[in-house]
């Protein structure tokens, strides 16, 4: 198990518990009551820590190395998954995985950024940072969905679109812009879930939908707290402050009306009970599809656009001309 810095109190408790269990198993002394008490203490401590997370702590949790990624959820939630590859122009971007699958009886297109569980996998998936091909691959899948009337489900988890030279040459900006444009007009339901990191345009590039949800311990922002610190504070040392200032947590995003709902995670984070998390997600998707599938496509698109139309805070000053 990996413990994050703010989880240190849990680490010592877990260690104690493990030791007690070991001693107990060896059969010398009956420690059952002590173990139960300690387990209780662990649960309480965890609840206590997790009920008061700072923005930065959520960011850390969203990057937890054991956190379930897109491929895990696809595997758990869907059946008969057929992975699709390539953008038909340049190559197959491994930072985005997706394909056609069944959720219950419903055929869907499901896709998202994939990070990878081992160092090797992480490199293979480019740490979940798509190149333009990735966004074009995603759009190609979404267009298939539109043509055959499958709803689209996107799982967002990226530290950002890849900031490389080739990405610029092949039009990173154009690829993302095109997706925003096309997703706004997709004639099928589009559900977006932030399952980890929602960093900037790289996240939004697969994130325009009828409904957008965030898992409890994720973040969504115009910039990562580190980059924000480096630009606005001119130093890398203010990431915690930046994370607070950016108000990037799920509760903030809900309060701002920029997302539709928060999906609760098991106490301690999705990685502690990934199967339970996947189950929650699956039943949530099923419920959403039931609501969105019967709607008239034009009406759905109109609602989608007017939802985004309303986003923004400003003031009206002085007299309105005319």
């Amino acid at each position, binding site marked *: 198990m990996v413990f994050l810095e703010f989880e240190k109190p849990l680490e010592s408790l877990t260690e104690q518990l493990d030791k007690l269990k070991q001693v107990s198993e060896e059969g010398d002394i009956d420690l059952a009551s002590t173990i139960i008490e300690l387990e209780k203490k662990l649960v309480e401590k965890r609840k206590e820590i997790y009920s008061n997370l700072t923005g930065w702590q959520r960011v850390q949790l969203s990057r937890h190395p054991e956190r379930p990624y897109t491929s895990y959820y696809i595997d758990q939630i869907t059946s008969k998954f057929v992975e699709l590859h390539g953008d038909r122009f340049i190559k197959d971007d491994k930072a985005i995985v997706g394909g056609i699958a069944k959720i219950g009886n419903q055929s869907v297109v499901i896709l998202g950024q994939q990070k990878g569980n081992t160092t090797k996998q992480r490199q293979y998936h480019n740490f979940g940072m798509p190149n333009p091909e990735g966004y074009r691959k995603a759009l190609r899948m979404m267009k298939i969905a539109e043509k055959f009337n499958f709803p689209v489900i996107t799982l967002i988890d990226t530290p950002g679109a890849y900031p*490389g*030279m080739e990405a610029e040459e092949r*039009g*990173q900006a154009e690829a993302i*812009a095109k997706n925003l444009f096309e997703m*706004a007009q997709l004639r099928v339901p589009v559900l977006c879930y932030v399952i980890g990191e929602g960093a*900037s345009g790289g996240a939004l590039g697969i994130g325009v939908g009828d409904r957008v949800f965030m898992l409890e311990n994720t973040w969504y922002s115009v910039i990562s707290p580190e980059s924000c610190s480096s630009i606005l504070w001119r130093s890398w040392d203010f990431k915690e402050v930046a994370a607070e200032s950016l108000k990037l947590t799920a509760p903030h995003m809900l309060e701002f009306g920029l997302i539709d709902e928060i999906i609760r995670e098991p106490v301690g984070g999705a990685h502690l009970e990934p199967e339970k998390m996947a189950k929650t997600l699956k039943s949530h998707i099923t419920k959403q599809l039931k609501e969105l599938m019967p709607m008239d496509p034009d009406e759905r698109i109109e609602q989608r656009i007017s939802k985004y139309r309303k*986003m*923004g805070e400003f003031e009206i000053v002085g*007299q309105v001309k005319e």
Partner: protein
Amino acid sequence: MGWFKRLKEGVSTETINKKAAPDGLWHQCKKCGETCTSKDLADNFHKCPHCNYHNRITPELYFDIIFDGGKYKELFSEIQSKDFLNFTDLRAYSDRLVEAKASKPGKEAIVTAVGKVKRRELVVAAMDFFYIGGSMGSVVGEKISRSIEYCLEHKVPLMIISKSGGARMMESAFSLMQMAKTSAMLTKLGKAGIPFFSFMTDPTTGGVTASYAMLGDLNFAEPGALIGFAGPRVIKEFIRKDLPEGFQTSEFLLEHGFLDFIVDRKDLRERLGDLLHFFRVDEHVDDLAPETENIAPIQTAE
């Protein structure tokens, strides 16, 4: 050679006592280093007379260049930024706003206007780099959205002049969502068959490029403008390599297929006139009538 050598080290003149050339008489080019008078610069569309470097200019100067007789009507100037997140970095966002508003009263990082170009109506939304780096926040998204609605209602083409460092970080996810908002609204313009021209000027980066700037029916740019998604400094730090000469310039984007053409600022008005002629929405304009007769009775903004 005592005449040329300082006899005493550490002699320095207080800034206040330094004699500077009066501001605004001469201009030294940022690119080639040559000097010219400010008048010559202004007469040359604020381009260097020696190397044709296009200096960054304000929306108002673009309006003067573009619109017939320099006449136009400003739209939606009542929409202003506010610090709704209480964002504070090294400075408070509210202070930055106060300062920006003081330097350009009633303006924002984008100024929107309607006027006529060669007798045809055009709505122009021009970004202002001198207003918090031309950063895209809620106001930019809202003014673009309202411009689109105006274009839909009056059947007028739209041009956005991009000049921005990207999204306004002090508005966090709100500024991010302006990318989705403007792109979604542009689909409406597309469906109605109303042309949208995206004109990119130095610099066009970040979330602005990755939304409306790249979504024109036609995309074009001024020569030598920096245009990209990630900024050059970010890329350089990330890949730990120097970037080649000319990387992310207008010419680079043209070569890689992301621009339709590059247009010199002195030709902008003529070119727009041609485009509006091709993409005619308004069929009633008599192309043969003398230009001056058709200048609409539009009041200027100020």
